[in-house]
């Protein structure tokens, strides 16, 4: 067990959010490990379609399929983990947690820290090899949003992973791991699990488990709760260049403080935390996780000094008997291209370009499943709400057009029709340096539910 005793004599456990998605600030883990006291670093790498990208990588190279950034992150915090007792929890394992663990151990050995890491590896979330057996056994895995049966896309599925909760992470910590690597663990479990382990919360202590989940929700997007992307009084948020990532200081009763290291930029206030709490929120009464159903209408926030917000009063309800499954499938191709038109009459020129291009596509007999034109600088983000006058006097407008279709050849043909407009379309046009837009394969997301009993997680601890 780690954790320090706070000024009131109660044990405090500090979990630091060090990565909010794959691609987040590379500096953040080291800054969290070195900027002040922390017990755990929590790194979230997986967005909805990340697993499918990793699955494709693993198909090409059996030693790939995990978030490679994590090895560099581990290197940047190796001193803290090897010598100062900091533990790390990350869902960097993707579809190949074992390979991720091997890469981390090899890095540690190369850096002279052999024997200092005990890596817990959580597997069992990958349902891809079992998908036909599961369908045959009556698990329909219908799309949660549309109700469609999985059978209609079965032959195009490339990844299927159950979202798993805190239990296997707690097991890895109990078995002495100081680094825990999971596959498709929920983002929030990465924070709740170490708190559950440290405080010994039982499987039906719903309010405490819910508090741990909400702590996780607050810090799972990194600096988005500590001044990043904060609309409230944004001009007054100081020193974003040096933004402090969030830290949860939790107590055994489930109450916690959100803060950040001293001498960092950004801000932790009731407003910055509230903005993060409502981010990606559905029904606030039922935030469903594998461990507990958290009630966001029970959360109370209050200022607790500069850059400190106390969170309390959280209520939870029993978990459901289902797990969410993230299924990824091939869904055709797309390409998006753009050109920039300059003043005067930039919008009018861009709109003429759109008509010309669409007429040419039509004459080529190219009809797509979907075409979308946008005018950046006028209406791309707010559409009609921007008003009839929007963009009319803009110094420049970006014309952006995308197509989507099952037929790759059609999409590739489209991508050749944009750049010619520079010489054979409306005037005052630039911004074509990128040339032809790339045709990309679309990997789409199919959310489904499955009985919890179907998924068996496994934990290995390796050195």
């Amino acid at each position, binding site marked *: 067990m780690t954790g320090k005793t706070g000024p009131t004599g109660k044990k405090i456990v500090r979990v630091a959010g060090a990565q909010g998605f794959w691609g987040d600030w590379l500096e953040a883990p080291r800054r969290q490990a070195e900027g002040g006291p922390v017990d755990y670093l929590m790194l979230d790498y997986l967005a*909805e*379609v990340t697993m499918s990208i990793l699955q494709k990588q693993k198909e090409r190279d059996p030693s790939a399929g995990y978030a490679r950034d994590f090895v560099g992150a581990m290197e940047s915090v190796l001193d803290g983990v090897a010598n100062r007792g900091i533990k790390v929890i990350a869902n960097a394992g993707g579809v190949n947690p074992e390979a991720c663990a091997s890469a981390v151990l090899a890095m540690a050995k190369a850096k002279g820290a052999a024997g200092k890491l005990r890596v817990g590896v959580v597997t069992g979330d990958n349902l891809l090899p079992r998908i036909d057996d599961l369908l045959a056994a009556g698990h329909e895995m219908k799309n949660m*949003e549309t109700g469609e049966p999985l059978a209609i896309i079965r032959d195009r599925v490339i990844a299927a992973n159950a979202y798993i909760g805190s239990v296997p992470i707690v097991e890895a910590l109990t078995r002495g791991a100081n680094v825990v690597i999971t596959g498709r663990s929920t983002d929030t479990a990465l924070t709740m699990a170490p708190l559950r382990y440290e405080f010994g919360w039982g499987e039906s202590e719903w309010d405490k488990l819910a508090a741990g989940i909400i702590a996780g929700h607050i810090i799972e997007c990194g600096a988005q709760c500590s001044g990043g*992307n904060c*609309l*409230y009084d944004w001009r007054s948020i100081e020193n974003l260049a040096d933004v402090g990532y969030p830290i949860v200081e939790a107590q055994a009763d489930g109450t916690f403080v959100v803060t950040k290291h001293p001498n960092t930029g950004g801000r932790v206030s009731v*407003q910055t935390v*509230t*903005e*993060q*709490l*409502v*981010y*990606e*929120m*559905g*029904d*606030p*009464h039922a935030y469903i996780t594998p461990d507990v159903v958290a009630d*966001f*209408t*029970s*959360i*109370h*926030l209050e200022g607790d000094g500069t850059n400190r917000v106390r969170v309390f*009063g959280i209520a939870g309800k029993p978990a459901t008997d289902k797990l969410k499954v993230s299924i990824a499938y091939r*869904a055709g191709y*797309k390409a*998006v291209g753009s050109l920039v038109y300059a003043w005067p009459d930039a919008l009018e020129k861009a709109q003429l370009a759109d008509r010309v291009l669409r007429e040419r596509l039509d004459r080529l007999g190219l009809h797509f499943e*979907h*075409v*979308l034109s*946008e005018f*950046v600088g006028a209406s*791309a*983000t*707010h*559409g*009609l*709400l921007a*008003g009839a*006058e929007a963009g009319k006097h803009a110094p420049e407008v970006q014309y*952006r057009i*995308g*197509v*989507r279709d099952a037929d790759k050849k059609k999409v590739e043909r489209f991508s050749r029709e944009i750049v010619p407009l520079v010489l054979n379309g409306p005037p005052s046009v630039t911004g074509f340096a990128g040339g032809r837009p790339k045709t990309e394969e*679309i*990997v*789409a*997301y199919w*959310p489904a539910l499955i009985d919890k009993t179907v998924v068996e997680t496994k934990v290995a601890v390796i050195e």
Partner: protein
Amino acid sequence: MKVRLLDVAHARSGDKGDTANVGLIALKSAWYPTLAKYVTRDRVAAHFEGVITGGVERYELPNLIALNFLLHGALDGGGTLSLKTDAQGKVFSTALLRLVVDIPDEEAVALGLPPATDIS
């Protein structure tokens, strides 16, 4: 009195599939009950007419002085299927803050709500 949400609230938005959510947060606790009364589901649905293809759901979080709106059919299919610049619904937040609501003068003055200026 006409009041623009931008002057009385802040917001953050995100996505879940083809649905955007917007959390609307009162700038002052005292203003929350009035926001909850006048920023109705129907009012928000009318605001986004022609911008989204589906319906609107609304939830109240008085504990956070916030309302949560789910805007269905907002993201051109959502996720990787979407061709939109804002495929993840990140800036529906300020699109909602454009909304101007009518609040009885007496109530608006008593609360010190700022009147909307420059209404087109």
